[in-house]
């Protein structure tokens, strides 16, 4: 078969597969919806959680039971500009049931008397650790109590003529060497690489199954294989179409993160979330070989299935493996080991993290992952081209 005939056949297959995938509106809608709305949704969720916490801290409210037993504490809290609130009578039950998600500081009746007599009175903070808001309020109450204890201690020693300087024998100074990008990557790195990889997997799965097992199920593969076309040309055309859909899905997901930043309510988060067109383009470049490999692997797995249902079982394994591999990076918090770059999915996750941290991408960082993906692609395509003819008969 001449080269031009080979490529014109592959192009005809590609055009048909793209047209076919484009007309599968139900699947297309679902994929586009998932890839476009997942970023805004997650960012909105994170933003809501963080801004809620910030508002909680800004409100400066504290639920105290028995504040009348400690005028000193009341004075301290008033100086901290805290508004004191009385908890409901059945606060304990409400806290346990989750209908009241605050923390309550309980001051016993003889608190001040014991404090004067240096008998270490007890203060109790009642909270529900299963509630995030209640836990935040507990931390707030705890730091206030610690500050009050520190103040009383300092004043007591000062009255006895002890210099305040001797109370702080050590000066503790912290220096954060993390770059702005690294700090930003704590937020962006936790979501963007994983979501982009998931987008590639979701985007590839439908067309990969439809163009192989779907054609077997519908009996389309048999007439197709009776054409005088090289099985490699057929495999190449189908693979190119599936790869393009996967790349388009990843592009949509990456692009959706940029306007999604406008949804961030928290100023702190806005400062932290550094993701622009440059990062999006680099992440897309990193994903290209991965999308190619995933498309080929999923098609090779799908072609073994006589029906879409059978193909789905095989593809779920590919999908799950590719989604779980990046979690290996949780084992190493600092510099990543070199073998990360030899594992598809984990390598792309690591590379995208480097981009988001603002670290340089050296050729050795992207050449190995791209090469490995290329090997996977070729092996899967070789299998696919053989299997297309062997499995053509339903």
């Amino acid at each position: 078969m001449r080269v031009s005939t080979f490529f014109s056949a592959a192009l005809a297959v590609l055009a048909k597969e793209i047209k076919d995938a484009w007309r599968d509106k139900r699947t297309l809608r679902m994929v586009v919806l998932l890839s476009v709305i997942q970023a805004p949704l997650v960012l909105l969720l994170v933003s809501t959680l963080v801004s809620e916490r910030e508002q909680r801290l800004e409100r400066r409210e504290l639920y105290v039971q028995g504040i009348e037993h400690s005028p000193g504490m009341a004075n301290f809290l008033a100086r901290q500009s805290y508004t004191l609130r009385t908890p409901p009578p059945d606060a304990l039950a409400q806290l346990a049931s989750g209908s009241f998600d605050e923390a309550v500081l309980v001051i016993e009746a003889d608190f001040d008397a014991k404090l004067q007599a240096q008998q270490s009175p007890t203060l109790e903070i009642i909270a529900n650790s299963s509630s995030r808001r209640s836990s935040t309020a507990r931390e707030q109450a705890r730091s206030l109590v610690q500050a009050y204890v520190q103040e009383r201690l300092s004043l007591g020693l000062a009255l006895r003529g002890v210099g305040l300087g001797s109370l702080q024998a050590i000066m503790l100074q912290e220096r954060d060497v993390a770059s702005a990008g690294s700090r930003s990557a704590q937020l962006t790195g936790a979501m963007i690489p994983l979501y982009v990889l998931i987008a590639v997997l979701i985007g590839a799965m439908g067309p990969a199954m439809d163009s192989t097992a779907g054609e077997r199920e519908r009996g389309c593969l048999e007439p197709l294989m009776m054409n005088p076309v090289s099985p490699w040309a057929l495999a190449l055309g189908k693979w190119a179409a599936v790869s393009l859909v996967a790349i388009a899905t990843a592009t949509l997901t990456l692009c959706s993160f940029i306007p999604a930043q406008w949804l961030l309510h928290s100023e702190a988060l806005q400062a932290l979330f550094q993701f622009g067109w440059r990062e999006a383009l680099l992440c897309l470049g990193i994903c290209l070989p991965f999308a190619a490999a995933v498309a080929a692997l999923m098609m090779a797995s799908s072609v073994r299935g006589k029906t879409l249902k059978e193909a789905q079982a095989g593809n779920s394994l590919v999908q799950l493996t590719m989604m779980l591999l990046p979690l290996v990076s949780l084992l190493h918090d600092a510099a990543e080991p070199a073998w990360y770059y030899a594992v598809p999915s984990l390598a792309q996750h690591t590379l995208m993290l480097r981009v988001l941290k603002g670290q340089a991408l050296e050729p050795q960082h992207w050449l190995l992952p791209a090469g490995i993906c290329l090997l996977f692609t070729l092996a899967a395509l070789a299998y696919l081209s053989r299997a297309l003819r062997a499995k053509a008969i339903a």
Partner: protein
Amino acid sequence: MIQIEQLSKRFAVQRTGASGWRWPRAPKMWVQAVQDISLRAENGSITGLLGANGAGKTTTLRMLAGLMQPDSGRLLIDGHDVLRQRSAALAQLGMLSDARGLYPRLTARENIVYFARLHGLSDSQAQARADLLADLLDLRPLLGRATEGFSQGERVKTALARALVHDPANIVLDEPTNGLDVQATRALRETLRYLRSPAGGSKCIIFSSHIMQEVERLCDQVLVIAQGRIVASGSVPELLQSTGQPDFEDAFVQLAFASAAPPAIDSGRTQPAATQPGALQPYTYVGSADPGLVEPAVSRSGEAPCA
């Protein structure tokens, strides 16, 4: 012209336990699907393959279309060996397989044009052929419709147009009238007669069916296949004459089932079924050279069923 020479094919059958599990180490069972089939179909004639379900018709045609590798034998399409010159051979063949396999989201025109493009036609040539075939097969109103929801007749017409889009000299139709109503069957019959005629290109047509009436009305030559072997061949009057039956169905039953033996199953070590006592001897049919009933070929005793 299509030539098939001493074609054989057997399949391994996996043993399955009562629970439905397959035992990978269990010895394989073999079913001889096609055995020593030879035929020659000339241009400008319709050759019918008549056989009961499971007789081996579809397996033979699938091997002809390059979808299966035969165990032994040769398949030639206009002199091109299907096994060695696959592309050149398939370029001369238009096959309507049992699986019509239309793409449901594409229109009838797109289905036809897609296959034309795979045969190397330019877009304008493909569109022109689609229009021509639409007129020939009365497809015009369907061309712009997605094939999802097509009736069986509409599906067959579209699939036939797709098979003929590159104007092949050889046409193979596997059970084309399955599911068609009387009107559609008659229309298909007329189309095939036209394609056989010099005006239609004097195509070489192989028509496989298990429906006696279809074969009787359409085919110039008939090959009766039973249990993977050609058990009789000739024109319809010749077959009637040889069996002494006035009715073609009775003649077919007599030829195909008279000395029916169970399908040849062995474990790969036994003699071929043809050599078993009581088994039918294979016939060799050579189309135009000898259109009449032929003598049983020499028994191939001792020859392994698979090369």
